Structure formats: C-alpha cells, structure tokens
C-alpha cells in the first residue's frame, strides 16, 4: 500500500493528461505554415519594504504583429505566491494553471500547505518537461515570487528565477525576464547600488514609481514590450505580496503615480 503523494500531475496522468506533448517537427510545421508563435515580453520583481512587488507589461506579440494589448502575465498561484511569465503564453498559462491546481490539490488532499521547496521543485519540473517545446521556440522563463511566512519572525518576501532547463536561483533584490529585460537589468542594478535608497528599503509608492519607469524604458527599446496607454486605461499589471497576502494595485492608483512621477510634461 502506498501513501498518497498529493502529486496532482500523477493524478492527472491516471486520467490521460500529460503536461508535455511531442513537439518534434513543430519548428518545421510552423515554418511551412508561416506560423508565428505568440510571445510575451517584460516582467520584473523587486523586494521592497513590505514584501515583493511584481509587474508585467500587457503586450503579446507574434513576430511583428501585436496580438493583444491587455495580456495578464502576472498570475496568482495561491494566497502568497505569484508567477510572472515571459515567453509563450500558451505554455505559460498552462504552467501557471497546473501549479495553481497542484498547490490546491496538495493542500486539500494532504491537509497541509505544500512547502516552499516543494513549490519551487514543482515549477522546475514543469519547465524541464517543457524543454523540448522551448527548443522549438515555445519556451517560458518565469519569475516566482513568494512571501515565506516561515522565514524570520514576520516572514520575508522571496524572488526566484529559472533557466530554460528548470534550474532555480534565488535573488536577493530583483529579477527580470523577457525580451525587454536586457534593457532594464542594468538599470535595476544601478538603482539598487547607487539610487537614493536601496530597492529593499523603498515604500510602496517608491517601488511603483521605479517599476513603471523601468517598464516604460523596456517598451522604448523593445518592440515586444507594451507601453502605457492612459486614454485606454492600459497600465502594467502590478501586484504586491506581503505578510497580509496578495494585493492588486488598481488602475486609478497607477494612473496617479504615472501622471505625478513618471510622465514628464514639458512646458
């Protein structure tokens, strides 16, 4: 007799579901059909005074075509975990959905939360299983942000990023991923090293201001990253994770910060 593992992927397999599928020939078929895979763009996470702030632009592109300008790349997994995805939305959303259901299933079946390490390994496993697809151009490089209630007296915000094979790395201050990340990674380092205050000591408004400036910088240099459209109320998705759980930053708040601190008006 075996003890139930609480592994949702194993349960799904018994019902005929496989996370990965045979992707051999995808590249050839997509070329023959002149098919461009839809891709996501720039996501960023920073540790700030109260926890972690995590954000993403809203654009999804396929080659030179803007497919969608209201994509949501910052996805909640449970009350204290968020994944931000850059890459192929089809794979990214499936990874996020599988993780969300896996965490829930473990909690419901085993009557305890999945450990931090268990959550990290689950994401590694999904990225690794997707590697053949990544080699065909349908990859995902996510950032995982978690508020770890077990860390220290009051808990602590943590940020992890991954490579294409599923290796996981914890960063102390910030992480960014996607095609626009190359333009802002150096800026993040500069801000953290020589800014007025280090990222980890910023309050919420300071963190929002910096993140909005960073995403605008990425959109300026990377065509696959969407900018702001105040008229159509298209702003980045920004969420926080603190000891009290996850909170959405509402559009009106983002609009105020944008107009006050990001948008430069010349007389």
């Amino acid at each position, binding site marked *: 007799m075996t003890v139930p593992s609480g592994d*949702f992927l194993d349960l799904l397999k018994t*019902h005929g579901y496989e996370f990965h599928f045979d992707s051999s020939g995808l590249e050839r078929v997509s070329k023959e059909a002149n098919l461009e895979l839809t891709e996501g763009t720039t996501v960023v996470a920073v540790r700030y005074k109260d926890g972690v702030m995590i954000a993403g632009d809203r654009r999804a592109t396929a080659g030179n075509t803007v497919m969608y300008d209201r994509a949501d790349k910052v996805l909640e997994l449970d*009350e204290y975990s968020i994944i931000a995805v850059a890459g192929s939305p089809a794979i990214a959303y499936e990874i996020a959905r599988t993780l969300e*259901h896996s965490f*829930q299933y473990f909690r*419901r*079946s085993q009557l305890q939360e999945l450990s931090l390490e268990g959550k990290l390994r689950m994401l590694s496993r999904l990225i690794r299983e997707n590697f053949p697809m990544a080699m065909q151009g349908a990859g995902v490089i996510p950032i995982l942000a978690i508020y770890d209630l077990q860390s220290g007296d009051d808990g602590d915000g943590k940020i992890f990023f991954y490579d294409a094979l599923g290796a996981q790395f914890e960063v102390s201050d910030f992480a960014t991923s996607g095609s626009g990340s190359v333009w802002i990674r150096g800026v993040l380092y500069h801000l953290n090293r020589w800014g007025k205050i280090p990222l980890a000591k910023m309050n919420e408004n300071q963190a929002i201001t910096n993140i909005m400036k960073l995403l605008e910088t990425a959109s300026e240099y990377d065509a696959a990253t969407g900018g702001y459209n105040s008229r159509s109320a298209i702003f980045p998705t920004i969420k926080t994770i603190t000891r009290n759980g996850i909170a959405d930053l509402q559009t009106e708040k983002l609009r105020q910060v944008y107009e006050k601190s990001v948008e430069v008006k010349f007389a």
Partner: protein
Amino acid sequence: MLDEPYRYLEAVSNRRDYVEDQLRQGSPIVSLQYDDGILLLTIGRGQRKIYEIHNHIVLAAIGHTADIERLRLLATDAASVQGFQSSVDDVTLHRLTNFLLAPTIKREFETIFSSPIIAKMLLVELGGVQRESQFISLNYDGTTQVDQRTGVLAGNEEIESAMRANLSDISQNLSLQAAFELALETWAIGRHHSLQDNNNNQDDEDDGDEDVIEKKQLREAVQEAREQGEIEVGILDVSRRSKSKFCLLPTTETDAMLESARDKL
C-alpha cells in the same frame, strides 16, 4: 444461505445495527448560512472533521477515520480533476454526491461480505450566481437528504431532529458571530441528546427525554467537550479574495468568538 431473501434482509439489518452503534457517539456537526457565506462547527477530540473539497465545497464527517479519509480523497480527486480539465463551475455538489459518493457508499453497504463504511457525511456547497447554496446529508447506506439553509450531522436521526428543531426559525440575516453562537448552541443540544442516548443504553431504562434543556446543561456539554478537544469552525466566505472560499478559523479567533458568546450560552 444469503441467497434466501429473508437471510439477506437480516444480514443488512444486522449491518445497519452495527454501523449505527459505531456512529452513535460521534460529535455532532452543525452548518448554517450567515451574511457572507456558510459556517460549519463541531468540537472534536484532536481529529479534524471539516475538510475542503474544492473552492466552494466542504465535507464534514463522523465515523471511522480510515473510511472518512478514503471517501474524502475520492471526492477531492474527482473534484480536482474536473476543476482542472473543465472548470470550477462544473464541479457541483449534486454531481459529486449523486454520481460518485452515494453510489460508492450504497454499493459497499450492500456488499455484505465486506466490511461496511462507518461514516456519515455532511456536504456543503456555497451558492453562486445561478446556484443556491446546498446542504446534503449522506447517510452510511448511501441515502441523501437535501436542504437549502442548514445541515446537521449526529449519531442518529433522533439527535439530528432535535438539532434541526433548534435551527428551524433561523433568521435571514446572521452575522458570523450570531451564526457561531447558534451553531454552538445547536451542537450542545446534539451533544446533550447524544450523552443522554448513551446513558439510556447503559442503564437500559428510559427516563424520558427532557423537552426543555437548560442553558446550564448546554454550557456543561460545551465545557466538557472543550476539556478534551477544540472548537473547529470552517467557513465558506464569499468575501474571501482567493479562489478558494474555504478557511478554518484559527483557535485565537474561535476563542474570541466563544468569549463573546459566553453570556448567551
């Protein structure tokens, strides 16, 4: 021998007596609606009795731990797979109960050469946009009873009737605290009847049921139970931000609610 009809009926009857005897002393479970959702309450002896099955569905049970676990996992697995492969909206209490749990329990109850399932369940579903909240009692033989506003579970039908009577004139708008107080009072009524039932069995004489139970007796029932265990309160709350509407209230919160209820019970 059992292919003779009356032998079969006798075997089923014996089985019924055996299971009912095993369930008699189960700690009652009460569930009712309040302003923002549904509350479930019991007092256990360390063993958890209220379980989350899916975002909007909860199971509470009395009986043998191994049987409860088996059925709980069966329901959790089915709900989780359906919720993933289709939609949370397709995971309904009606489907889980009528197509999965009730047939399984009935089949095992009537398979008289195997050990019976010693468990009774209360399944609760939080209503949605086009769905009313539901309370389904699932008996050890697979029979069900559906209610829209409250649900109770206890060792036998007499105890459950007494508990239902206490919930019969429930008001429409109850705060969480008011629902907690009513649920605790109903639990104490169930517990009182359960202990009385046990004493009657032991003494083998019927002193006659007391129609009116004094508050003091209810307080004693709660106090006695709390010496051996904790008050377990689970809620399905529509105002919760997360997709799952279920949470078990922490002991600090139930203690504070009990303190506020002290004068009323």
